[in-house]
């Protein structure tokens, strides 16, 4: 099997995260045995001889991204994929908007609610790490559908909960389905050309995160309708949970029925020939674990994405309790936080790319630090806002900065390592969930201080933790405060391969990447290779 441009083969560690960042050419699945099938008019077709609706490249990945199209397989995959991810977000955060009713039904204390919130985001730390391997082995279609249909029973168990332990356990198991993020990104990478995979991935991730906002809006409405029909309030919230459960099951079936792993067909249908040359997992892990920048960004991602998850868990209850609103009103206001994801996450990545054009990597680092610190400051102001309209306005601006910081983080991640990109991206994502666990445990569990004080303290912690971005130093580009050394991009990316591997020429992919990465020097480089696959954004 002909290797991809980067020398990596299918199934290697890290291949499942290719394209997540959208800054490197992606050859997630190289099924070269098919070659370039064309019909008699020299138009590319899949193995069954069907023409593609969109222009495709030599791997049959789409070269354009048409949002309003549902054409199989590319755009159909996009819509199946982001909607599945969105429904999983919907199910995971379906309990918080109804917490006002649930806490009285089950007799929950603040600590119980906090534990349940932590449980809801901790399950996916593991499932996200596993999902990459599952997608590599059986394909994103099976990965996504199996996960959704296995966790749907957990959603159906919520109507049966009558104890605190039951509630925490059910939220834990439902939270596993957030791993559809990985299958979503993986699937986009196999369907879309590297020039637009960043746009496809970023849009899919942003629209998926919308689920956390939509649920705050929709669950109270469903509850209200069921109450209106005549159910008791303690029964109505239980019945409301059938809605996410049924949609999740339905989407799982839809993915199985009409989904397709690759532009040419499903894994099982395609023959694979040739030997697989796997990169050493130990080596990939080693170069990830010894790169201190991975830890820094895993930590900072916990204070943008982690904070976003925490706020999804607490915001409806916060508005209800502090401002004495109706359940549905608190839900509508809380939903606007998650709904900002439509634009804020992609914009964060776009801003990072814009700044990098002139200031390079140093600009990206400053961009991330400024956006995330602004997010922290606005978090503090949100906790201090005692007026309803002020609180709503501050929350909207806060949500923009927090979600833009997520996008900006993934503008930097692809440059940390070439060889261990998958592991580093996965670790960053897991770091986000860990941040959610930590912030909920520290600030929203004790009755000692109120929720508004917890929000203020969380903002303070965001500001402090984001300071570690100052510590990130790239020898070839410098850091926020220090200029670069004489070291070059080639030196940096070559250093991930030892002498034996270099003599075998395994590092050539990294050298090619280093050439393209010269764009991160900013305007001071007069001759930047124009062959750079212009990183759109994530």
């Amino acid at each position, binding site marked *: 099997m002909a290797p991809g441009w980067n020398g990596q083969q299918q199934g290697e560690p890290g291949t499942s995260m290719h394209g997540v960042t959208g800054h490197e050419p992606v050859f997630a699945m190289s099924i070269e045995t098919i070659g370039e099938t064309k019909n008699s008019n020299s138009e590319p077709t899949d193995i069954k001889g069907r023409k593609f609706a969109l222009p495709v490249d030599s791997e049959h990945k789409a070269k354009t991204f048409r949002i309003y199209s549902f054409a199989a397989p590319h755009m159909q995959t996009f819509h199946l994929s982001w909607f599945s991810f969105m429904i999983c977000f919907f199910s995971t955060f379906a309990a918080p908007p109804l917490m*006002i009713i649930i*806490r*009285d*039904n089950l*007799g929950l*204390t*603040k*600590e119980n609610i906090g534990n349940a919130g932590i449980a809801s985001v901790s399950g996916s730390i593991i499932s996200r790490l596993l999902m990459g391997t599952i997608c590599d082995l059986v394909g994103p279609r*099976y990965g996504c*559908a*199996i996960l959704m*249909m*296995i966790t*749907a*029973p957990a959603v*159906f*168990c919520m*109507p*049966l909960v*009558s104890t605190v332990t039951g509630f925490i356990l059910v939220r834990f198991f439902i939270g596993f389905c957030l791993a559809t993020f990985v299958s979503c990104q993986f699937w986009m990478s196999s369907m879309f050309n590297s020039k637009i995979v960043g746009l496809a991935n970023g849009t899919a991730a942003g629209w998926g995160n919308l689920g956390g906002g939509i649920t705050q809006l929709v669950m109270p409405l469903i509850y209200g309708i069921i109450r209106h029909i005549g159910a*008791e*309030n*303690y*029964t109505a*919230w*239980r*019945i409301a949970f*059938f809605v996410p*459960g*049924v949609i*999740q*099951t339905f989407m*799982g*079936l839809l993915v*199985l029925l009409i989904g397709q792993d690759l532009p040419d067909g499903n894994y*099982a249908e395609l023959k694979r020939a040739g030997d697989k040359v796997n990169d050493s997992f130990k080596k990939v892990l080693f170069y990830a674990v010894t790169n201190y920048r991975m830890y820094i960004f895993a930590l900072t991602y916990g204070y943008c994405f982690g904070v976003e998850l925490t706020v999804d868990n607490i915001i409806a*209850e916060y508005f209800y*309790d502090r401002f*004495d609103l109706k359940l549905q009103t608190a839900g509508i206001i809380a939903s606007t936080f998650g709904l900002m994801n439509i634009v804020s996450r992609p914009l964060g990545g776009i801003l990072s790319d814009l700044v990098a054009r002139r200031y390079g990597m140093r600009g990206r680092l400053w961009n991330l630090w400024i956006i995330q610190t602004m997010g922290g400051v606005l978090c503090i102001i949100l906790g201090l806002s005692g007026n309803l309209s002020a609180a709503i306005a501050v929350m909207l601006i806060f949500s923009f900065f927090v979600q833009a910081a997520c996008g900006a983080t993934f503008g930097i991640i692809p440059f940390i390592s070439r060889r261990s990109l998958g592991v580093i991206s996965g670790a960053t994502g897991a770091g986000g969930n860990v941040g959610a666990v930590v912030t909920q445990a520290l600030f929203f569990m004790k*009755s000692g201080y*109120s*929720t508004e004080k917890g929000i203020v303290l969380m903002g303070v912690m965001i500001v402090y933790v984001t300071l570690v971005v100052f510590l990130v130093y790239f020898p070839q580009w410098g850091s926020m405060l220090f200029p670069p050394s004489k070291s070059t991009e080639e030196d940096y990316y070559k250093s991930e391969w030892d002498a034996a591997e270099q003599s075998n020429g395994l590092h050539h992919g990294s050298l090619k990447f280093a050439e393209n990465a010269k764009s991160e020097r900013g305007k001071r480089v007069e001759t930047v290779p124009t062959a750079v696959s212009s990183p759109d954004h994530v």
Partner: protein
Amino acid sequence: MSPMKIGFVLSLALLALVSVAEGGVSFKSLNRTLTVQAKIQASNATSGLAHVGTDHLVISWAFNSSFAGKDADYVNVKIRLCYAPVSQTDRGWRKTKDDLHKDKTCSKGIAKQKYVATGNTTTWRITKDVPGAIYFVRVYAVDALGTQLAFGQTTDKNKTTNLFEIVPISGRHASVDVAAAVFSVFSVGSLMGFLSLEAIKQRKLNGKAGQ
């Protein structure tokens, strides 16, 4: 309309009235000029617990004559169900605050009656939306605008004596349980079915290809 719905609407109206009328009166400034008693009227008299939906609370209140003359401005009384401290711990949404506009101790309204010095009685069937907790009953004497002027309650100053427990509904129903089980089985079952069908199809195709 069912009694539950009437009770719910009444309590909503009471709540609405209370939230509109409260102007931040300080609880400490109120005198305890009313005497209040509450009894559980239960189908199972020996249990000492009140069950929502079936049992009643019989609440009687009267003006304490030793405060003669202080009741000149009293127009109405509002009878409310209040959380005892043990049910408030670790639950900030039930917190007691001196500013009655922000106080969440007595969030459930029972009834509203006209004030008469000789007092009155009310029988209230406990509605099904009442959470399980330990309670006492408080009666506020209010003026025409709804501002609290005085109060009386069934318990002492520290809210430790004469408390009663209300047992809630679980909210679970056999039909909901069955539906949940059916949907879960369908979800996992259809997944397994689909996967086995595809596996069988693949085996057939591989078999054909091998021939």
